[in-house]
Every structure is written in structure tokens, then in C-alpha cells.
């Protein structure tokens, strides 16, 4: 019996290629379907972890996923940025985009005001787009921390924007609107002494990324700051309604109530 030669029959070649492609594609699709819920949950937890961390609501490295989710759901309200304020959301696999993120005291009721707000900062880094959040204490107008949700910077160099050393540099920065040249934050450079309360040390060996972060922070902070602070004067139930997609109420010009002071301890439940 002659040996089977798969190349002799063109029909076999076509059928073989189609069957192989279909079989392997089906295997990948099956694996994807089997893990899609886990992947989506991971993406959600990762983002929630970053938000809980940027507000300093706990030590996220020590918290379980359940504790992170609980802290987020109890204390965070996320209001999508109005499209008129550069709001079109960035492409994110979990479907979330740019938002004003508000943090409340533990156990805060519907009338409570946010203790802190995180505004989006975003722009082109050394290689590609960087998306982040800058958390600001509503009462003191000092920066709490910064987090970078997505970037493509060089691991070990620009990629160190996600490390604690660089993020800690942002803690306590003055976040009141600046006078003079209008610079909100100096990243690197020679402004150490003159503007110590707005100065962030650049990453050694990653001047390009550091400069890029400074540039886009100074462009995006003023865009989102005023709307965020205005929303931060609203009670939680109104922010919850906006987070749920209800249209924003027109500005009534009323004097807002004082924000809840930022303290790390949760309120006692009665």
C-alpha cells in the first residue's frame, strides 16, 4: 500500500488547514470563555485596589480581595467625567473610563460629603499613553497620593512611576490653584527650594518619563480640578445618583456645606 502523501490532494490541503485552524481556535475560545469571569474580576479588583490605595484607605498589600472590594463598595463613589470635560473614556477592558472618584468616611450616610477626591491625570509618557489618578484631600487641598493605572514605560526605568518611592513624593503636595506661572507640580528640575510644597523628585535614569508626567499633570489637573471640587461639595446621595447615570443637576449657586474632615479611623457604628 503506497504511503499517504498529504500534498498530492489539493482538497485535502484546504480541508486540513481549515480543520486545524478551527480546532485550535475553538480550544482558545473555550479557554477564554472558561476564564473570562476570573479575568474580568481580576481587572476590577486591580483597579479597585489602586483606588483604595490612592486614598490611603488601608494597606492594600495586606488586605484580601474581599476586604478591598468591601472598602471600595462602602466608601467609594465613581462619577464619570462629563464628556464636555475631556470625558470620553479611555479604552479599558473592564469598560471603565475616566471618572472623578470620591472617598467617604467608613459608614458615611447619604448626607455626608466626600473627604477626598481623585481626579484623572493622563497624557503621553516616554513611550505611550499613561492613565492615572491624583487623590486630593478636600479640606486641606493637599495631595494624598497618585496612582498610575496603565502605562507602557520601560520596566525598571520609567515603569518605576508605579513604585512607592515615586508615588510617596506626591504626598502632601499643595493642590490649591497656583499663582505665578500656573505650575501645579514640578517634577524634577531646579525648583526644589523655591517650590518645595509643589516639588516631586524625578526618577533617576528616567528623566523623559518624569518630565512627561509633570507635563501632562500640569495640563490635566487644571481641567478637572474645579469640576471635581464642585462635585466634592455635594452629599453622597447626589453623587450616588450621578454615578448611577442620572443627569447632573444645574448649579444652584448655593453655598455648600463643609466637607467631612479626613481621618484614617472609621466611624463607630451606633
Amino acid at each position, binding site marked *: 500500500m503506497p504511503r*499517504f502523501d498529504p500534498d498530492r490532494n489539493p482538497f*485535502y490541503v484546504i480541508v*486540513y488547514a481549515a480543520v*486545524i485552524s478551527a480546532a485550535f481556535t475553538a480550544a*482558545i475560545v473555550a479557554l*477564554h470563555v472558561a*476564564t473570562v469571569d476570573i479575568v474580568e474580576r*481580576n481587572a476590577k479588583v486591580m483597579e479597585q485596589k489602586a483606588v483604595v490605595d490612592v486614598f490611603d484607605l488601608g494597606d492594600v498589600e495586606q488586605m484580601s480581595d474581599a476586604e478591598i472590594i468591601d472598602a471600595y463598595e462602602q466608601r467609594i463613589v465613581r462619577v464619570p467625567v462629563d464628556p464636555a470635560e475631556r470625558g470620553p473614556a479611555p479604552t479599558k477592558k473592564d469598560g471603565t473610563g475616566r471618572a472623578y472618584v470620591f472617598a467617604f468616611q467608613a459608614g458615611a450616610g447619604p448626607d455626608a460629603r466626600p473627604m477626598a477626591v481623585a481626579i484623572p491625570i493622563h497624557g503621553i509618557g516616554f513611550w505611550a499613553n499613561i492613565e492615572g489618578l491624583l487623590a486630593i484631600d478636600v479640606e486641606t487641598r493637599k495631595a494624598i497620593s497618585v496612582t498610575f493605572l496603565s502605562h507602557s514605560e520601560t*520596566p525598571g526605568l520609567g515603569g518605576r512611576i508605579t513604585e512607592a518611592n515615586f508615588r510617596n513624593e506626591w504626598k502632601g503636595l499643595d493642590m490649591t490653584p497656583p499663582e505665578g506661572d500656573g505650575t501645579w507640580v514640578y517634577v524634577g528640575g531646579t525648583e526644589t527650594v523655591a517650590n518645595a510644597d509643589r516639588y516631586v523628585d524625578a526618577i533617576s*535614569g528616567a528623566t523623559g518619563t518624569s518630565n512627561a508626567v509633570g507635563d501632562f499633570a500640569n495640563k490635566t489637573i487644571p481641567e478637572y480640578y474645579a469640576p471635581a471640587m464642585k462635585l466634592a461639595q455635594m452629599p453622597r446621595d447626589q453623587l450616588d445618583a450621578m454615578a448611577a447615570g442620572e443627569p447632573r443637576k444645574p448649579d444652584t449657586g448655593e453655598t455648600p456645606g463643609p466637607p467631612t474632615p479626613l481621618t484614617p479611623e472609621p466611624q463607630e457604628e451606633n
Partner: protein
Amino acid sequence: MPPANSNQAELSPGRAAIAQLWHENPIFRQVLGICSALAVTNRMFNTLLMCGGLIWATTMSSLTVSLLRNYTPQRVRIMVSVLIIAVYVIVVDITMRAFFPDIHRDIAAYVGLIITNCIVLGRLEAFASKNPTLPSVADGFGAGLGYSFVLMLVAVVRELLGFGTLFGFDLGGFTGWWTGNNYQWVIMIMPPGAFFVLAVVVWVMRGYALRKEAAAEGGK
């Protein structure tokens, strides 16, 4: 021992693996897979994960291509091989995304590079498409190990000189002395640093291997 010709048929699994580890090492003898060697080797942990992914891809692709070798038409063999490699790399990507999300975030960009790694396709074309399953698996595994062996050497040098650490661990006095005043040897962290380190590693290892072979030839 003279170098084994790992592309010949009827090679034992052990000899096939050893040939890829040393005599025909993909990096310092064949100079293949250099792109990823430059990209990932500034951190030992990233390098280790990349190596694990490549060992998986070469081994499983070799197994599959070898199993299908008598049924795969020659005119579509490259397409089938690339499809098989892509499938195994996507399996790595999805598995890491689902079960190791923190690690995935660090090395996602590198995992995709495995598909284009010429070592994998090279071994499928040169060996697995012509040989039985067991030697093919050993050949693929050996090629992955040979690649990993050299890459880890490069990573040790780059991380040590670039960051003053190994696997991210502080080496006490050395790290403090090396990285004093927040100093880093930036060229070792950037991809061009890999050119220098890789060139030195290839030079040293080739020199050693050639000298050993010459001595073996002279002893006959």
C-alpha cells in the same frame, strides 16, 4: 565529544536535548531569539517568566508538530506551525491573566514576543516536523533550556550592575554601595546594555566551546 547534529533523524531524546543546551545552543551558537534577550533581561524575575513561557511554547509546539508531521501538507506547514505556536503562547497569556494577574501586568508585553521568537519556529522546522515525538519534545525542551541558560546569565549581570539587586532582593552592603545616592547604571537597564553583555557572554561561551571542541579533535 564532537557536536551532535541535532537535525538528524533517529537522535535519542537525551542527545537531542543536550545538543540544544550546549553544542547548538540557540543563543551563543545559532544567535537566534536575540530580540527578546534584549527586551526582558534587565530584571531576573521577568527573564525567568519569559524563559518559562518559551520552554512551554517550544516543548508543546514540538510535541504537536511532531504528532501531526505525517498529516501536515508541506505547503501549509509554516502556517500550521505558527498557528500552533500562537495557540500555546495565548494559553500562557490567558492562564497568567486569570491566575497571576500581578505578574501578567508586568510581563504581558513580553509574552506576546514568544510567538515571533525564531527559536520556536526554527526548532519546529529543523527538527519536530521530521522526527518522532519523544526526541522532538526533548529537542524543544532543550532549546528552551539553552535559551534560558544564556538569558539568565545576561539577566544576572544586568540586574546586578543596573539595580544592584538579584531577583529584586537587596544585597545589603553591595546594593547600598552600588546604588548610593540613588544611582543606577542606566545603560545596563536600557536595551543597549543587553547588546554589550550579550556580546561578552556569547564571546566567552563560544570561545570556551570552540576550545573544548578543538581539544577533543586534537585528542583523536
